[in-house]
């Protein structure tokens, strides 16, 4: 048995879907945030795996950019969470319902 790209893709898919389920099933906004980060990282694995398979570095570049953008997203996201929790005094996403109607 050889280590093929399919292994990495499978791992990536598994992590992505675990993250997705976390996003869908948890209510704590911080955990949702963690799961989103997990999804991004999982996608980065896919990029890197394809980069290795096709002998290009583009995939790694994309993964790098994905990490950079995730960092920006984390900064803004955490600031949002902080502001929200300061206002609503909760981290339960179900409490954040000002978007309704």
């Amino acid at each position, binding site marked *: 048995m050889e280590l093929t790209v399919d292994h990495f893709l499978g791992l990536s898919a598994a992590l992505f879907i675990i993250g997705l389920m976390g*996003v869908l099933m948890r209510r704590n906004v911080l955990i949702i945030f963690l799961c989103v980060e997990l999804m991004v990282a999982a996608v980065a694995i896919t990029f890197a795996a394809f980069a290795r398979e096709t002998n290009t570095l583009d995939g790694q570049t994309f993964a790098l950019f994905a990490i950079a953008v995730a960092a920006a997203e984390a900064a803004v996201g955490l600031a949002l969470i902080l502001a929200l929790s300061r206002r609503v005094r909760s981290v339960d996403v179900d409490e954040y*319902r*000002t*978007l*309704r109607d």
Partner: protein
Amino acid sequence: MAEYLFLIPLLPLLASAFNLLVARTAFPDRANVVATLAVFGSFLLSVLVFREIYNDEHALHQTISTWIESGSFSTSIGLYADQLTAVMLLMVTFVSTLVHIYASGYMKGDPSFYRFFSWLPLFVFAMLVLVMADNYLLIFFGWEGVGLCSYLLIGFYHRRRSAGNAAKKAFIVNRIGDFGFGLGIMLIFTTFGTLSFAGDQGVFHQVTELGVSERTLTWIALLLFTGAIGKSAQFPLHVWLPDAMEGPTPVSALIHAATMVTAGIYLLARSSPILREAGDAMMVIAIVGAFTAFLGASIATVQNDIKRVVAYSTVSQLGYMALAIGVGAWVSAIFHLVAHAFFKACLFLGSGSVIHGMHEEQNIQKMGGLRKYMPITFWTFLIASLANAGVVPLAGFWSKDEIITGAWASNYLPGLGNYLAIFALITALITAYYMFRLIFLTFFGEERFDHHHVHPHESPKVMTLPLVILAAFAIGFGALGFPPDEGRFHDFLNPVFYGESHHDEEATEVAGVASDGSAVLFSTAAEEGEAGHGIHGHPTITDELKLNMGIVSTVVALSGILIAFLIYQKKRVDVVRFASEHEGFYNFLYNKWYFDDVYDRYIVFPLRRLSAWLWQKVDVGGIDGLLLWIVGALTWISGQLRRLQTGLVSNYALAIALGMVVLVGFYFAAFSDLFR
């Protein structure tokens, strides 16, 4: 000279722009100087052009740029000057210059002085473009341009309601004619694949060389004539011209007597190669022209407004021109056009001078005996009236006589030519009558105006000078047309219409008429002798006929004058009683044959009703109702959809995930080999 052609229309345009942009604030009271100088510059250039064409007999052609290019349709902005154009150029710029000078005095003190002198050169620009265009689309541009300027100038006193209405009437009535003209242009393009009439690929070349079905040409000719009907105020679209007298008098003189209204005649003359092949269309033109002439003259006999009389006279004279076109007397038409421009401009300016001297009084019943107050105006007016009446040896006599002769000699149908000629003679009688009715009522007899308020006086020199010049031309211009049909004027213009040169057989490729084709036609027509003429060639007219016709028309004109003299000077007939005895007939004439009423009743009123119905039922009820219904439906749907927006982030995330699953599933179903 060809490369400077563009300067001729450009100068007035620049003057107009300058007056609108700069003079408006800088020196509004001196705007006339710029405009007059520019038009005068155009006149000088036109003289140069004329000289060159007179010497060389070569048409000048300048292509400035490509205008529109779309598929196989391509039109350039090109200027073209042959003998016909040269004559028109001279006439237009000359009369324009005089009118500009005259208006400098007439419009003095008007609060919108600069505006007047912005529109007037703009009109000159458009008119010059019209006569110099080398294709029908550019003609149409100039055509619409003069229409626009006419609208602006008729409505110059836009605070006066009647002026505004007259402007709108002129514009709308013209639009009907323009519609026909536009259709004609389209038909020309679909038939010939080009709109340019000059050159080897031009329309005229194709007509004469390749031969096009007469049916198509008839339609084209009729459509072009529709345009001419509107612009040149032929029956049944003549109604706008008398109303256009709401504009300032110089405008009436320039636009509604000398230049713009002749644009239709020019168009027909310019299209002579088409018309010549168009068969029955020519007959239609001739009949309409003769009828218009009679119609205008008959109405003019009973009008009391000095400008209106002159205006109906214009309608009548335009009818003569159309008649000339219709009987194939091309040169005569142009000859009459130019001569008419001089004496009719003189008449208008003279009536303007009268009005000016009478403190804006226009009713001739309140004038009389003005001869001694304004002698220059009187003499010039008299000369112009004589010319208009067609008295030997003034310009009007020669041109009108040619037309009547040409009508007599034409034979579309057996005897029709003779009827037309007799009809024209009757009209000439009426013309002489109403012109001298005007003279006697205005300048002779007792002074019927209020001496306390009105102090008639002669106009300033700046106004009388153009009158004198124009009167001089009204006298002397006829010399160019002597002897009839063989004068210098005819020599000069004949190549345009008959492709024949009296000077040089080589120099006949003007106006797209190839020398050989038309020459053959002409020569065959000539060989056929007295019987073998007609619409396809220059009518062959014997000297004897000319002499007879001249004598007859002179007698007729003098009779008309005599009748007027007897009635209005000698009071042999009590006009008031006569009118009351024949009240129906009088009212019929006074109310202009009830044209306006009929139009109001059977066209305008139903249209208004239809518009109101469309507005209330279709627009408000149908279209707006549909829109409101859509709005309501959207509101309802949005209200339902609004429930989707729970505000719960988890639901949104769930929706996104669902979309992802569906998309991936769709990919599998549609693109992958998984299920195949």
